């Protein structure tokens, strides 16, 4: 029996590995996700079979309830709400690991409990709980329950340091005196506070990076639980997620041209501060305002358009009508392409997911490096709810938070159209000099309203 169990776990581990590998390439990603599903199903079924299911009722109820909730959320969720959903699920994974570890503490499967089990138990309690509360804060920030801006307490870093020291002390106490139920509870309590103080000073728009990091933690928590139970499939799957989450975090930071340290401790992010304020510096330059109808008229004479979507597109949920518009343009023989900046929107791949949802084929989407040379031969660069990813200050202004980040070269196009509500800056809070350029047309308004207007005008002509 132990062979059957262990080989099934091994098979599941291999399928997780292959699944994760396939998830990394566009062609095979869906298959990869399915492999991971099969792996999970295998692991669950063999566990049920081998452990004999002594208390079937509570187990079935637990699985059905959890599965239903998960399924319903997954079906209902809007694509724009993806970041907060992933955050929440991460938290659930973390708390599950903590609960398992604590349950194992209450009734150990093997006695006497050895030193190494106790050490990994502490790790599991700690990481799991940090993942939970950290994820809840991230969720609250993204959902708008908490303000998105960084909340920095007085002596914040010292507080964090004290919390870490407290955990180490309680951990040692626990190992010295494992019988006392106080210590694990104290560890959990401190971890809960630490999760909050860890995430709360990070700006709402940096949350995707934090989520990737918490994702990595939730894997490590599962792995630590695997150490406690000496269960290899937990260790392997957890370690895979732990490592890949860390790499993903790094990739994201690279794309934003920031260090992980700066994200975690830099307290960047003025997410809430949109509006007509805070732009253009001191002197008042003039912009030329246009309407959707003006834009439609211009579209009459052009041959090529590159659309640059940004965070505002997601907020306005304008992806469907945008796709309709681009089909109208194509029907006129205009060459339409989408230029996707790696950090456009608020999570990596955000624009790709949104546009895919609106049935835009993914081979119409071009990554930055593939399209940047084409702007100079393009008639219109149509920028919808984006700002930072097209802000030329990134090239020139040394003290800008954007400085050094590669941007889409929209300013090389013959005409530049901005669709946004105001002269407000984007996530980085950096004024965009391109608004005031002669070849720029500003079309103020909500992205969805403006694009709908464009569609109407294009149809009427």
């Amino acid at each position, binding site marked *: 029996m132990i062979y059957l169990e262990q080989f099934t776990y091994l098979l599941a581990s291999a399928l997780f590995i292959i699944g994760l590998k396939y998830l990394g390439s566009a062609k095979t990603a869906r298959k*990869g*996700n399915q492999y991971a599903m099969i792996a*999970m199903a295998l692991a669950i079924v063999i566990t049920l079979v081998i452990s004999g299911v002594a208390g079937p009722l509570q187990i079935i109820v637990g699985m059905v309830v959890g599965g239903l909730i998960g399924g319903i959320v997954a079906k209902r969720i809007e694509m724009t709400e993806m970041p907060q959903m992933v955050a929440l*699920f991460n938290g659930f994974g973390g708390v599950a*690991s903590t609960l398992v570890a604590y349950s*194992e503490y*209450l009734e150990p499967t093997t006695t006497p409990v050895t030193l190494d089990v106790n050490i990994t138990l502490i790790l599991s309690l700690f990481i799991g709980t940090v993942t939970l509360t950290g994820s809840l804060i991230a969720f609250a920030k993204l959902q708008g329950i908490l303000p998105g801006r960084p909340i920095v307490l007085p002596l914040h870093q010292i507080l964090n340091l004290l919390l870490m020291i407290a955990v180490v002390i309680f951990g040692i106490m626990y190992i010295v005196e494992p019988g006392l139920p106080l210590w694990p509870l104290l560890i959990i309590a401190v971890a809960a506070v630490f999760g909050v103080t860890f995430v709360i000073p990070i700006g709402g728009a940096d949350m995707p990076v934090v989520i990737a990091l918490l994702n990595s933690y939730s894997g490590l928590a599962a792995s630590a639980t695997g150490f406690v139970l000496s269960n290899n499939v937990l260790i392997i799957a957890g*370690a895979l997620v732990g490592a890949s989450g860390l790499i993903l975090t790094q990739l994201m930071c690279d794309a934003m041209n920031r260090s992980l340290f700066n994200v975690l401790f830099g307290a960047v992010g003025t997410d809430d501060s949109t509006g007509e304020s805070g732009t253009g510096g001191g002197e008042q330059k003039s912009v030329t305002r246009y309407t959707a109808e003006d834009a439609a008229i211009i579209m009459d004479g052009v041959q090529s358009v590159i659309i640059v979507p940004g965070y505002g597109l997601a907020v306005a949920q304008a992806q469907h009508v945008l796709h309709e518009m681009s089909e109208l343009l194509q029907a006129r023989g205009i060459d339409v392409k989408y230029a996707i900046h790696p950090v456009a929107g608020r999570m990596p791949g955000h624009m790709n997911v949104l546009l895919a949802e609106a049935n835009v084929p993914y081979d119409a989407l071009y990554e930055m490096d593939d399209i940047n040379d084409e702007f100079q031969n393009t008639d219109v660069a149509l920028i919808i709810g984006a700002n930072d990813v097209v802000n030329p200050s990134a090239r020139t202004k040394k003290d800008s938070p954007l400085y050094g980040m590669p941007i889409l070269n929209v300013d090389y196009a013959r005409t530049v159209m901005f669709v946004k509500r105001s002269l407000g800056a984007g996530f980085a809070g950096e004024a965009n000099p391109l608004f005031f350029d002669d070849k720029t047309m500003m079309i103020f308004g909500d992205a969805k309203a403006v694009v709908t207007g464009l569609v109407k005008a294009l149809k009427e002509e």
Partner: protein
Amino acid sequence: MESLIVSIYVFTLAVFIGFELITKVPPLLHTPLMSGSNAISGITVVGALLAANANNWHMSTILGVLAIVFAMINVIGGFMVTDRMLGMFKKDKKTEKGA
């Protein structure tokens, strides 16, 4: 004590695999990758099943059942939403016409 050593070996090797697999994933896939690997971390459900598997209602059993619920939300929700997202990525069937 031997079992700790084994666990450390297995962990280390799996970490190497995780690192190797994810370097060079295109940004297009970062979101599905996050939600997919999120679902994988729900593997802790295996531990939850073991913890909840008792013919009593001790605290440890109750916590186990709670863990099952949370882990299953993570697993089912994560996999389904990833599949939904990936299902939306399609190539243009009209390319021939359109281009």
